[in-house]
């Protein structure tokens, strides 16, 4: 009860500033990809803080939300766009579908982990942070006698073969950021090697972000590479799952923005101010919401084991993230992953399995020739059809944007990349089999 009164008092305080300017009334339409568990508490708290307003939640996945704003721009009906993936906001900003709005709320730092919280141009603001990590089903792990992973590299171990799931990065902006973090942290070639090594252990690559926690919750796969709140929400719902942040992880903000030409401008601005206010930030600690607030002082109200990226340097502090580099090659990196991993998963897995087998054989009876062959096999799997420079080059980018400088069409590049991956994986499988034979 006391907490509630405190919350209410804070809410009133937070509401005062915008209330003096122009009291928000009427319907505030919020287009969001967040689930009911997240939107309902915010709707309640906002309506309580601003009597006379109602929040209309329109639930869409991020892609559908972006398309909706695009197609209805001539008479926009939406006040707020509210979602995780920063790249969706970048796309909307590029299409001039967002309204410039600098929140009045103070006390929010410029960065969380290594990632800037707000859009430097002021079109969208981070309101909560989330980190990527590994989630697993305890029953599954126990039944299959598997170890608990700690780091991304752990997932590349033979013991995890066929037990891991991830969302396709071309479908999930947050997965994209995780892979981009690895690429920036380890460099293009080494990063891709790491990514492909554990990708060879994947059970599947899903097209919905929520497909991964869903499969882990129900025990269809053992491990999922997920954003933290999926795991927290599953734990809150009683599922037997655990979660860990690896040391190299990104902490990325989830964002909120006012849509260009909002039907209820005062309401839209009040909504942004509210979720950035102390009262709004406390809603993030709610059992069903469980995201990391961007206000450092909110953590004092959090439960004891709550991760705090402002205190814990291991959370996202190890990597510096260059969003310029990232956005320059987004389409290329996404397409590379799809063509080299998602659509070639069977041949990649066959090669990985052969490499695991060869390694086991060599561990019993080591031969230098076998080691050399195994290394060749690994190099073949890791081999990239383009270098980092090529990936960011104007010629390749133009193939994806339809620019004039393109040297080849996107479909041609995709075919080349897929074909080279396929033959490399087949060759790797053969080399690994040869290595295993030498050890016998």
């Amino acid at each position: 009860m006391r907490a509630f009164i405190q919350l209410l008092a804070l809410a009133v305080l937070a509401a005062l500033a915008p209330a003096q300017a122009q009291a928000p009334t009427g319907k505030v339409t919020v287009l969001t990809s967040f689930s009911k568990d997240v939107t309902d508490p915010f709707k309640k708290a906002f309506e309580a803080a601003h009597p006379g307003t109602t929040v209309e939640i329109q639930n869409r996945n991020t892609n559908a939300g972006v398309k909706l704003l695009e197609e209805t721009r001539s008479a926009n009906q939406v006040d707020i766009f509210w979602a995780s993936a920063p790249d969706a906001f970048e796309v909307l900003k590029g299409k001039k579908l967002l309204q410039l709005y600098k929140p009045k709320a103070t006390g929010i730092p410029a960065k969380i982990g290594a990632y800037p919280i707000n859009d430097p141009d002021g079109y969208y603001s981070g309101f909560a942070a989330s980190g990527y990590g590994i989630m697993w089903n305890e029953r599954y792990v126990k039944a299959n006698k598997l170890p608990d992973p700690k780091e991304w590299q752990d997932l590349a171990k033979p013991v995890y073969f066929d037990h891991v799931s991830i969302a396709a990065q071309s479908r999930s902006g947050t997965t994209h950021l995780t892979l981009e973090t690895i690429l920036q942290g380890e460099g293009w070639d080494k990063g891709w090697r790491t990514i492909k090594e554990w990708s060879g252990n994947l059970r599947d690559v899903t097209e919905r972000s929520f497909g991964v926690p869903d499969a882990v919750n129900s025990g269809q796969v053992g491990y999922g590479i997920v954003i933290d709140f999926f795991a927290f929400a599953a734990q809150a719902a009683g599922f037997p799952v655990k979660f860990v942040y690896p040391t190299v992880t990104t902490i990325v903000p989830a964002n909120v923005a006012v849509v260009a030409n909002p039907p209820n401008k005062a309401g839209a601005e009040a909504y942004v101010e509210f979720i950035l206010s102390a009262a709004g930030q406390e809603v993030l600690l709610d059992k069903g919401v469980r995201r990391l607030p961007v206000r450092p002082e909110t953590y004092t109200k959090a439960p004891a084991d709550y991760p705090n990226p402002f205190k814990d340097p291991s959370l996202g502090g190890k990597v510096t993230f260059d969003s310029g580099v990232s956005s320059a090659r987004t389409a290329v990196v996404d397409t590379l992953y799809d063509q080299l991993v998602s659509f070639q998963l069977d041949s990649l897995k066959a090669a990985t399995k052969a490499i695991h087998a060869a390694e086991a054989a060599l561990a019993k009876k080591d031969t230098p020739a076998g080691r050399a062959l195994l290394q060749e096999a690994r190099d073949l799997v890791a081999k990239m059809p383009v270098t980092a420079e090529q990936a960011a080059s104007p010629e390749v980018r133009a193939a994806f944007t339809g620019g004039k400088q393109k040297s080849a069409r996107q479909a041609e590049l995709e075919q080349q990349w897929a074909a080279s991956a396929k033959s490399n994986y087949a060759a790797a499988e053969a080399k690994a089999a040869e290595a295993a034979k030498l050890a016998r």
Partner: protein
Amino acid sequence: MTIAIDAPRAPARRFAATPGQALLAALIALFLAFFLVIPVLTVIYVAFTEKGSGTFTLINFYDFARTDLFIASFWNSMYVAVMTVVLASLFALPLAYLTTRFEFRGAGLVQMLGFIPLIMPPFAGAVAMQLLFGRNGTINLLLDDWLGFKIPFMEGLNGVVFAQAVHYFPFILINLSAALRNIDRSMEEAAQNLGCHGLRLFRRIVFPLAMPGYIAGASLVFVKVFDDLATPLLLNVKDMLAPQAYLRITSIGLADPMGYVIAVVLIIVSVAAMGASAWVMKGRDYATVQRGGGGLTKRPMNLSQAIGAYAVVLLILFLVLAPHIGLFLLSIATVWSFSPLPDAFTFAHYTRVFAESSVFIKNTLLYATLAGTIDVVLGTAIAYLVLRTKLPGRQWLDWTASAALAIPGVVLGIGYLRTFFDVKMPDGTSFASFWFVIVLALAIRRLPYALRACYAALQQVSSSLEEAAENLGATKYRTVRRIVLPLMMGGMLAGFVTSFATAAVELSATLMLVQSTSDAPLAYGLYVFMQSPAGRGPGAALGIIAVVLVAVCSLISNWIIERNQHLRNTRT
């Protein structure tokens, strides 16, 4: 007698087109143009343009043919669609034949239960199926415990075939049953008198006579499976055409024409398949003068036949209803994770759902009823124009309407926004945000189902009955109303029920068009629930409510129409 199964070139005599028929054709063409062709063209014209410059080109189709992934996807889709038809026929044939041609207790119940798999709510159905048949689903966990092996029901292309056959076999069941009921029983009796029985009777007499219904169902299954993206994606199978199109069309911020190229390929294949099914039927006459009501009563079975028949029916029913059994368990489960059955049971999900979903239920019933009605009216009209008139270009109505099967819902949704958003209603709001647009989208997406059913029903009506009516002085309109429509009623009902039931659980186009929660249908509410772990139970509960609701409504409409027919029969 008019039966002439293998007699080539014995076409039903066609009547010349009257001005009224021409007007009807023009109205339907306009409707299809406005609500299908134009919206879809505003989206997929991209397939014919060069990326960046926007100039016309066919290079994208050249790229399609040169990309290994697309070619492999094409053949995978082909394989899955053909195998699904085979498996679905194996499910549907025994159910349809046993329940319509024999004294079979519970035939009505079997028919109804056999129809339920079609009402598979989005997401919930796939989740439930994974829980039962998945790698660590109930069956595999039990098999692994007891016998030490697992069966990959849900893996790869064959997993897609299994899931699709379970979901779509009712198309064959419904259309085949309607056709079987329409057969003149004296045909069977004549054959029996001549010493024909058992499988031979079925193979040579009954099945050929029911061919229009079977072809209608099988072609729907083929095209639907070829164009379906939800099931492969939920099973994580991506090397098929429809998922490839979807993945490319819906990626954020990428302007890739290949997604639309694939959509065009899907449309071409669908129309070709429909054309092929019409071509197979060409030059054959399936009409009989007498309806199924005549002749002897249904045949009795002896004890061993009966035991065999019930065993087969129960096994099939268990297989095809498994997703719904799983869904029901999920809806009363607390936590269900890596175990054959949920940890504990509760009714809390239902109370939560009932409290907040009554508006969804009302909207769903309204939208699905309207869409189903529009579909049956259009389907009957198109079937009549194609089969009974000589209007030039009448086949195009059929093909265009059938092409709707191949349009991904999201493409139709975007097309509607693009075409209608700037059309203002009298009160100044956009036409695209008017709830009736959702009904139109649903009607267009489900029109092929109703159309095939009506088409098959009319094929089984002998035109000599209409000629007789007209010779006795009835006008064309009166002939249609008093002779054709009553005779087609069974097929029209099948069409309505399929359109209604599937429209009630459709999501992909709706998701683009719902502009406020108060206008949203059940599927949208379900979608919102299924996005969080805590929402799985309530989502499943909402799914079960949808299934029960749709099944009850279908039963009622079935009952009303059968009663009316019965009344009419006793009057005459």
